[in-house]
């Protein structure tokens, strides 16, 4: 095998490590993106019987955002198996207990329930903050683009930026500043 072909072979079957910043991202929208990388769906060599998925490191999973009041509308069900063993946990309650779990379940539920799913999930590394072990971080060679832009808070702008931003209305002359 020629040297070029050999390198091409390595490059094709090597596992790529991606990193994704989940701050201000909807976990259910990001799950649809992350699953493509985890299962290798974007690769031309993809086949269900061909295990070609990549590793994905997700950081800042504690800062995920849900639309509207979905933190109190989304409910996670669990049953212990015993009579009366059902329990319903609100999304914000689950997020308080473990800030990685909402995203993990979102990715897990976005994939079909087959024998590969558990092994695919092992390639997903979720961290609640931006601290990633160096052994994992040194593998990373790609960053996955965020789905929605991160909003900037008003107190993060400088005073000059706020003052010199184009103004739509002026205060009337008889207005008392408060």
């Amino acid at each position: 095998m020629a040297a070029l072909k050999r390198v091409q072979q390595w490059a094709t079957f090597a596992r790529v490590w991606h990193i994704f910043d989940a701050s201000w991202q909807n976990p259910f929208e990001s799950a649809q993106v992350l699953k493509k990388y985890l299962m290798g769906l974007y690769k031309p060599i993809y086949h269900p019987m061909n295990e070609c998925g990549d590793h994905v490191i997700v950081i800042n999973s504690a800062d995920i955002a849900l639309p509207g009041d979905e933190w109190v509308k989304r409910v996670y069900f669990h049953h212990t198996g015993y009579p009366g063993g059902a329990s319903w946990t609100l999304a914000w309650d689950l997020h308080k207990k473990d800030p990685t779990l909402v995203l993990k379940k979102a990715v897990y539920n976005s994939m079909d329930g087959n024998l590969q799913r558990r092994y695919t999930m092992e390639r997903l590394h979720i961290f609640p903050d931006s601290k990633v072990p160096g052994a994992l971080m040194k593998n990373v060679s790609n960053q996955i683009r965020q789905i929605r832009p991160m909003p900037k808070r008003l107190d993060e702008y400088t005073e000059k930026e706020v003052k010199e931003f184009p103004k739509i209305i002026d205060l009337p002359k008889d207005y008392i500043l408060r």
Partner: protein
Amino acid sequence: MNTLLKFNWQGLIKAAFPLRTLSLFPKLQLKEIQEVQEGKSLIIKGVNVPSGREPFLLETENELCPICSSGLEVKHTDVLIISQFVRSDGCMLPRRVTGLCRRQQKRMSILVAMAQKAGLMPNLTPATSKKDPKKRFGWKRYNKYFDESTIKIR
């Protein structure tokens, strides 16, 4: 009989000619209330100040309200625009002050509520507020965003 004849002349005069304050200076100017402590005495004075917005004001070409004429589609994350319609304690300014049309005033008040719920204007809050959105109660401390297409205005 004597008591009946006693007529309240002073009350009649006051009702007929209500007390009007006369001022030689233009009263209508942008004012800021300042409290100055000098020794034991507290001085509260209204000081005329420029609004500081004149050099950065958008020019309107038609007679529509400022937002309608600008053609902007304001989102709840555009805090630099939304904060122009809010007092320093986070209250929405009334329509007689903002000069917006009925629809845009309603829409802007909803956008203000969205931005505040999302914790994007933590410095424009009442004095009793904890300021930091992460210190809010229960589920309100977690990040949330809103969809502007859910705003229903007739």
